């Protein structure tokens, strides 16, 4: 099966995948338990789970005969990186703007 590598934003742009992450934010769940929360077919749920796993948002561990899904931090790091980047970016740019405006104020 072709598994396209999605970026973090694309991964969580899908409402079903967001729902899976919300469910897992409360507790680790088996794939079956997760699937019970959705109207879609079990393979469809599995596909979303696969996307989340591939992109590092969740990990899957075999415990006995069950497969448990848990949140994993790697996937969230891309999002965090962007937010941190923009935060620092704007702080820096606004400082520059302040310097320019200060010079302007002095001249007048």
């Amino acid at each position, binding site marked *: 099966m072709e598994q396209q*590598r*999605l*970026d*973090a*934003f*694309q991964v*969580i*742009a899908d409402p079903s995948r*967001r729902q899976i*992450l*919300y469910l*897992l*934010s409360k*507790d*680790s769940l088996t794939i079956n338990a997760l699937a019970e929360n959705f109207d879609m077919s079990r393979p469809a749920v599995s596909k979303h789970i696969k996307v989340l796993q591939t992109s590092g948002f969740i990990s899957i*561990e075999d*415990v*006995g005969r069950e497969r*448990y899904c*848990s*949140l994993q*931090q790697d996937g*969230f790091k*891309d*999002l*965090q*990186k*962007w*937010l*941190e*980047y*923009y*935060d620092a970016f*704007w*702080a820096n*740019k*606004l400082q*520059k*703007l*302040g*310097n*320019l*405006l*200060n010079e*302007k*104020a002095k001249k007048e």
Partner: protein
Amino acid sequence: MAKIIQHQIFYPNPVTDVWEYLTVSELIAQWLMPTDFKPVVGHEFQFKPGCMDGCDFDGTFYCKVLEVTPYKTLSYSWNFKSLSGKLNTSVVNWTLTEKDNGTELLLVHRGFEGEQMLPIFNLMNPGWAHHMTKLSEALNPETSLTANA
């Protein structure tokens, strides 16, 4: 980590000066980046900071003016593409407030797809270790130690 990108700064300049620096492309270039911005709703413009280390980014911000209320508010979309060509959206809002001795400038950059997931990021800080520990209890002791570290 940043929950929302928001900066509020006071400048000892009249609101007209601050507005000029936000809306005249030659002035924007002096503090932000070179751009073909025009303060006209619907106008499309770009910033090209180039590629950045560690970010999945094609080097260009694709923007469109959404709102212009002279000397008060300005907003534009701020979209960026990953190297695979998929578009991510966000919005930059500027609000100017006239004060006695200057201008208060508020910047809010939001509307990222990921933003809806922020409650989960927050849950994860304490929650993540807990979930991992719980799962690890069923696995071997080495994994439990790692998850607790």
